[in-house]
């Protein structure tokens, strides 16, 4: 779960990491009021995606006029599909130098890794690509935690003269990373200003699997992703027209790849999870078919814990309402029973994943 900049900064504030004074607004008048109160400010679009600066979602405002025009413009924007509903209005702080500090998980070393770079303020992926030597990394032992010498070494590599302030921020960010089950905790830029080192931006991603032990509240979006998640399934929207329903993530990815190999374009990824029952298969079909772009649907079940007759029952119950061609592949536990049930309803069936993938692409393009 990604946190908004303002939410991450609220956490920074609790841990005493220096951030600019600011206030969160959702309309132009409040933005103008804030400017009147604080003077020279920056208006920052609050969206859960990167690249908002390039998209024009960040603007400086020195007076009420500038605040009005910029707030109006940004609040009406959509950045990479995310409508801007809130602005963070912050006092402007002139950066003398922009650095990078981030903590994430090193999957290979199986431990947290702290990364710093003197080249901050730009996309860190870009730095990693173009000048990887400008990123300094330090692994932290998950059981012993961050040692002082490690924070010192990292801070010295950024700015020896300011190392005390930076060490302090590194240690606090590491606590935030651990306490909140972060996958990522990032300050970019970490800026040197006349009044000291400060976190101009804040990014946090929380491990979804750990949300049960925290109070983070996601906003209700009613997206298909969210509906699927509530049903214990995993859905990712894509831009094609072939609806896909599969049990198991690996098989689901393989199925999408095969649809693509046969010239189709998947409309979604959907993993109904092992052990899916009739109700879940029904819910999956209703979610996938509600995407208007979908022209045909492939259902690929390899029954282990999932029983093929259960899946078939779910399909049959909702099939009359779908009005889109469906091809089903059932294999594994109770496959004969499942196939016999579907056979009575004239639903297309395939013997293998590949046959089903080929079949669904044909069903989706009947003119070819």
């Amino acid at each position: 779960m990604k946190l908004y900049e303002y939410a991450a900064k609220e956490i920074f504030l609790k841990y005493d990491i220096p951030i600019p004074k600011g206030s969160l607004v959702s309309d132009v008048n409040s933005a103008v009021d804030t400017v009147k109160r604080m003077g020279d400010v920056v208006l920052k679009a609050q969206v859960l995606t990167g690249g908002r600066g390039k998209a024009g979602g960040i603007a400086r405002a020195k007076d009420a006029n500038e605040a009005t025009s910029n707030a109006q413009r940004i609040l009406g924007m959509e950045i990479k599909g995310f409508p801007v509903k809130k602005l963070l209005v912050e006092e402007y702080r002139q950066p003398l130098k922009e650095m990078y500090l981030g903590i994430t998980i090193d999957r290979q070393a199986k431990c947290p890794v702290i990364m710093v770079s003197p080249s901050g303020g730009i996309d860190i992926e870009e730095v990693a690509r173009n000048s990887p030597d400008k990123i300094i990394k330090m692994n932290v032992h998950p059981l012993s935690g961050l040692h002082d010498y490690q924070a010192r070494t990292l801070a010295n590599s950024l700015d020896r003269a300011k190392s005390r302030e930076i060490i302090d921020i590194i240690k606090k960010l590491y606590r935030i990373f651990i306490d909140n089950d972060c996958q990522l905790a990032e300050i970019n830029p970490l800026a040197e200003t006349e009044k000291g080192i400060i976190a101009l931006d804040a990014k946090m991603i929380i491990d979804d699997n750990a949300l049960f032990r925290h109070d983070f509240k996601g906003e209700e979006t009613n997206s298909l992703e969210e509906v699927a998640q509530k049903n214990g399934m995993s859905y990712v929207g894509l831009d094609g027209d072939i609806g896909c329903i599969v049990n198991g993530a690996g098989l689901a990815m393989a199925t999408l790849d095969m649809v693509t190999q046969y010239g189709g374009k998947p409309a979604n990824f959907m993993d109904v999870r092992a052990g899916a029952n009739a109700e879940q298969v029904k819910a999956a079909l209703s979610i996938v078919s509600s995407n208007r772009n979908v022209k045909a649907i492939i259902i690929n079940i390899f029954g282990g814990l999932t029983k093929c007759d259960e899946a078939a029952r779910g399909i049959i119950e909702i099939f009359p309402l779908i009005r889109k061609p469906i091809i089903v592949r059932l294999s594994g536990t109770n496959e004969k029973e499942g196939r016999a049930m579907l056979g009575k309803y004239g639903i297309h069936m395939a013997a293998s994943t590949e046959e089903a993938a080929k079949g669904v692409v044909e069903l989706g393009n009947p003119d070819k």
Partner: protein
Amino acid sequence: MGILINKDTKVIVQGISGKEGSLQAKWMIEFGTKIVGGVTPGKGGIEVQKVPVFDSVREAVDVNKPDASVIFVPPQFAADAIFEAADNGIALIVCITEGIPVHDMMRVCSYLKTTSSRLLGPNCPGITVPGASKIGIMPNPIHMSGNIGVVSRSGTLTYEIVDLLSRNGIGQSASVGIGGDPVNGTSFVDVLQLFENDPETHAVVMVGEIGGTAEEESIDFIKGMSKPVITYIVGVSAPPGKTMGHAGAIISMGVGTAAEKIKAFEDAGIIVARSPSDIVQHIKKMDYS
């Protein structure tokens, strides 16, 4: 005789009184696995699938001296269950549970280095040695004894491939799922090493997916192996920044695309199959026996 387990491996089931633990214990017993007991705190004294249930791993170890444990406990308690198994000297811990916080897994993996236990998983289907033993949840009927080692990050995709191999008369020495989480106990290289040393295994099928660099990390090892390895990578059509079902299946900060992995394998001269049936074609072409 396969890797990691054999027909004499004694197994306990942590979380045996739950719905899934109980059902899978039944299927493992039907496969021929020596399930000697189960553990569910607070349920000590009862029997599930005709095996005794204990309150703690300690008691199960005192009575049954198991070689392995398979874990079906819910994600919020799973790390604790792994610690308990390791602290009681269980040599092989297979964790099926999906959804364990990754910070828990970092601590677990770090701790396990100080013990003699091996962890397989979490979020994995376990290991099956056809004709000998199965620890985990792979469907019983799909396996067939033979000389192909299968190692994969996935569950159902592994079943699909193993089933297809068996239907084509290609048996397996062992099928191993290392799990779909970003941080796990046993790596591709660990399993490849076991297959390399196993006289029953003549060739290996390795199934990878998007996310991380576990596949790339195995390249140097594969190049040094005496046995052929056929790889298959899924997630070519996956967009960046989205978790594709498995917590570990995510292209993050530009790292972990299928195209990258396929290119790395091909550049190293390693066979990359394009589909499950393509795996079968490659095996049929090679003289691996």
